[in-house]
């Protein structure tokens, strides 16, 4: 087996094992439209593939995937704000269709609430809700554990206010 083929297989395994993370990020950081989800998904996979040779197991593969996925999502959001018209690539809808068949209004509310947060806080909340430890979040966000704790505390306070503003109208 050639080295390239082995690399491809290894990468495919990584993507396969990280698909839940990838799609969670895609759902949380887009408008939940199939085009946007698939677009961001491809962008993240592309960046993973690009960064794959530089990944030397300093952190766990999941942590690395989280970091790349969240950074890509952040960059994509910024790009979208600058050139909203550039990013429209409709793609395969097989996965998203299965989720869209039976949309849950409670989940939509959750995403809408998260959408109200700034990008950085959104990333931290995403990781926190995904049951990552403070240490793991700190590693992904490139900050200290204490800073993460403080941020999460502030996000919690902010969410109450946002929740009141949004749903007590």
């Amino acid at each position, binding site marked *: 087996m050639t080295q*390239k083929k082995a690399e*491809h297989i290894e*990468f*495919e395994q990584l*993507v*396969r094992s990280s*698909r*839940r993370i990838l*799609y*969670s990020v895609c*759902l949380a950081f887009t408008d939940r439209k199939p085009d946007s989800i698939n677009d961001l*998904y*491809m962008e993240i*996979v*592309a*960046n993973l*593939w*690009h960064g794959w040779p530089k990944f030397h197991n300093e952190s766990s593969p999941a942590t690395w995937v989280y970091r790349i996925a969240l950074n890509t999502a952040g960059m994509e959001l910024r790009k979208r704000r600058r050139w909203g*018209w550039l990013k*429209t*690539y*409709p*793609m*395969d809808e*097989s*996965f998203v269709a*299965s*989720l869209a068949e039976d949309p*849950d209004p*409670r*989940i939509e*509310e*959750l995403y809408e*609430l998260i959408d109200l947060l700034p990008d950085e806080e959104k990333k931290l909340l995403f990781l926190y*809700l*995904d049951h990552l430890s403070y240490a793991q979040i700190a590693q992904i966000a490139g900050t200290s554990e204490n800073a993460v704790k403080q941020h999460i505390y502030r996000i*919690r*306070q902010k*969410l*109450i206010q946002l*929740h009141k503003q949004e749903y007590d109208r």
Partner: protein
Amino acid sequence: MTDKGKLSIKQSDICAIEADSLFADLQSRWDEQSVRIDRALAASDVAIMKELPMKPRPSVPLRIRMLAVYVVLFVVSVAAAAYWGFLIPSLAFNALALVVSLVIELIYILLVAECLYEAVSLIILSPTRVGTLRMSRHYRRTHMQDKTPMLQMRRPVVACIAAVIALTVASCTITGIDDCFITQNHLGRTATIETVSNVINQL
């Protein structure tokens, strides 16, 4: 509880309880969604993996190769300009013309190359960037029933038109400057030759 046995709840306690219950609710919704995602992924396992056609990464990214071309072209243009500069006796004007020419040539090269790069990458290689794992437009059209919007379809055309306009404008400007350059050079050389002849005659 206070020391008198009465219940005392502060505003901060209420906020904390509120935050906890809201967070618990959010967490439960998030977990539900995670389960749904897992279920959806399990059901569409094969379909999703079809989305990963592995393109080999080029050893040198295209952007770097393009940059190398920019540099080579720039060096060539500088060499050409320097060649003309040496032949010109009227230094002040020609030095100015040289600088203007160089700046315009550099802008022109970068602009045209960028436009062409964008056009080529959009038409042939991929919809956005080159050199990474990406589905080509052709792959999407044939395998994914791609319904690319019109604006997206027009991007390569717009990029090509921009490249042609940039090329035309830059060529005209450079030709104009070069004409001026050559004329000045010619006159300057003639004048110098005449002056030298006069001196020789006088001698």
